[in-house]
């Protein structure tokens, strides 16, 4: 399998998605008991593999899903268990999963489950890797979620690079008559905003991957007017394991407020860029260490993805990798992405490139997003080029683009990232004003897809 092909931008990115060879090897001899609670990895297979886990291996490793008769009490109990486990969405927003499940389940009408594996963020690869390596875990989660909310259909929206694998897994299950509900795979759209919840629903319904201006929440009226549960594929994978092993097992790793493990994509200036599974709360330095540590001295980290925040590398190194832990530096784990910026690169240049990309990926539906992000990107480019930008104008526009000015969080997320950049790279800004730049490497450390006018 060519991992290099997994890149939404069609451009060979710095992350090669290759996993480190683990010391453990997979034991093919018969079923195994539940994993010891504290041991990782939970979601990803042990050791290096370039084949998706087949149904048989999957069942051998994790055991079957607990049987249920569809009893209401079982549903309530499992939702309570999920709440106890403290599972939060792994798509970036971190919304408590039990709350979402309860909201959709309480509608009383026939619901539908959407497993969101779009992963519109270009450098993030965790959802692709999860679907490529452990599709059955995600499918288990979708099936459990469907049973919990009263749905008889689950739609898996998978990134086009891995949708065939997921389709094959669905066929495997169908042949084995593994599920009571209908599973359907839809290849995801390629745009950045396509991963937003209402955009995914819009995409399935009408083939338009743009967020919708809905008066009603998706849990009340979503896909084809039905109560819809949209959940990130990683969240569903965790759900599948909670259904088997329970809340205590889940909480054995992670922190008290943010329990469990999570998948992170490590990109940029690290020795072995790729997707790794970590316990939430692991110190940032250790997280980077999983990828072999920094390949060169670092100046800053972009944590959480394009909608995350820049943080100073030194300041963040000792902090726990959790939203609570990163709060002092204004960071947020987001969709589990850490991009390492070497000291030899210019943070302003990278920020300008990312912002220009994000401005171009606007769905084009709301004025402040279309015009505002373009204007901000323009000023950042001037700042990066040393062409004499107006910081006053930049701050004014950032103030005008405060939260909620668009139909989705695209402008909010972008401006949040820009704000953090202006703080972390303030010294660089002063230098640029004088005509100097500390960057000595070519721009392009943070992978940005070749932007095309859409």
């Amino acid at each position, binding site marked *: 399998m060519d991992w290099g092909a997994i890149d939404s931008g069609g451009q060979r990115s710095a992350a090669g998605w290759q996993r480190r060879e683990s010391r453990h090897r997979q034991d093919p001899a018969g079923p195994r008991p539940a994993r010891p609670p504290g041991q990782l990895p939970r979601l990803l297979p042990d050791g290096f593999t370039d084949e998706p886990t087949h149904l048989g291996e999957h069942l051998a490793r994790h055991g079957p899903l607990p049987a249920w008769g569809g009893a209401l009490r079982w549903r309530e109990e499992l939702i309570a268990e999920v709440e106890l486990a403290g599972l939060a969405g792994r798509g970036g927003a971190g919304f408590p999963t039990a709350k979402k499940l309860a909201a959709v389940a309480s509608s009383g009408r026939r619901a539908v489950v959407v497993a969101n594996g779009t992963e519109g963020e270009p450098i993030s690869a965790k959802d692709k890797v999860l679907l490529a390596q452990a599709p059955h875990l995600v499918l288990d989660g979708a099936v459990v979620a469907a049973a919990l909310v009263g749905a008889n259909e689950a739609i898996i929206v998978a990134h086009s690079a891995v949708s065939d694998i997921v389709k094959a897994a669905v066929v495997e299950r169908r042949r084995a008559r593994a599920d009571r509900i209908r599973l359907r795979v839809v290849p995801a759209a390629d745009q950045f905003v396509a991963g937003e919840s209402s955009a995914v629903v819009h995409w399935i319904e009408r083939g338009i991957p743009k967020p919708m201006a809905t008066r009603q929440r998706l849990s009340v009226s979503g896909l084809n007017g039905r109560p819809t549960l949209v959940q990130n594929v990683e969240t569903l994978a965790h759900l599948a394991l909670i259904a088997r092993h329970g809340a205590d097992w889940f909480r054995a790793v992670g922190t008290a407020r943010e329990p469990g493990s999570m998948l992170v994509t490590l990109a940029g200036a690290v020795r072995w860029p790729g997707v790794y599974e970590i316990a939430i709360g692991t110190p940032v330095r250790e997280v980077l260490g999983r990828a072999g540590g920094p390949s060169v001295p670092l100046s800053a980290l972009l944590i959480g993805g394009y909608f995350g925040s820049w943080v100073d590398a030194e300041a963040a190194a000792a902090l726990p990798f959790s939203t609570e832990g990163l709060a002092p530096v204004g960071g947020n784990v987001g969709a589990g992405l850490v991009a390492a910026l070497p000291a030899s690169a210019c943070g302003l240049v990278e920020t300008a490139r990312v912002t*220009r990309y994000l*401005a*171009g990926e*606007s769905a*084009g*539906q709301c*004025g402040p997003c*279309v*015009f505002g992000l*373009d*204007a901000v*990107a*323009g*000023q950042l*480019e*001037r700042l990066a080029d040393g062409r004499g930008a107006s910081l006053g*104008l930049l701050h004014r*526009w950032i103030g005008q683009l405060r939260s909620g000015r668009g139909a989705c969080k695209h402008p909010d997320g972008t401006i949040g990232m820009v704000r953090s950049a202006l703080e972390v790279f303030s010294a660089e800004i002063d230098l640029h004003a004088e005509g100097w730049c500390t960057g000595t490497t070519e721009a392009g450390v943070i992978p940005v897809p070749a932007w095309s*006018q*859409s």
Partner: protein
Amino acid sequence: MTATALAATGSQSLWLVSRGSGLILLVIFSAVMVLGVATRTGSKSASWPRFAVAELHRTVSLFAVAVLVLHVITAILDPYVSIGWIATVLPFASHYETLAIGLGALAIDLAGAVLITSLIRNRLGLRTWRTVHYLAYLAWPFAFIHAIRAAPYDSHIWWITSIEWGCLAAVATAIITRLLSRARPDATGAGPDAGAPGRGPRARAMR
């Protein structure tokens, strides 16, 4: 004899009022069209905020309805010509000047639709309302041709024809201005360019 004279005068008055109100109505209807276009097109002027133009358009339209009622009633009541009530809204039902009156009836039908949909716009939703509202562009030409043809004897009076063609010029100018402003890429009437020289989808059209 007095009665006959009175009757004749009365009839004469009705006829005059009907023609007069028709001409005034054409002027008012033309003003409504121009104001309607002005609501959308052109930059804001300091003394005439957009909402004022929008409100004026609305007020003048309602005034036009009042004049229309006068025009129609006097035309029907006028014994000199026989136009049944039904011919007011049913096109080509009149025996007198069938085409001209028919076009007038059509104009009333279309304008009526525009009016009603505007009054309940909030309930209809934007798309329906807008589609029907565009019928105004059809109603006005019908009204204009009606004006010219329903009273052919008036075409000899220079100031009447001047007013009529003046109305045509005003409405035509408004429509052309609207078409031209649509052709420009940033025709949204959005705020001033704040000076950002950024490349990218600057001129991306808004949906």
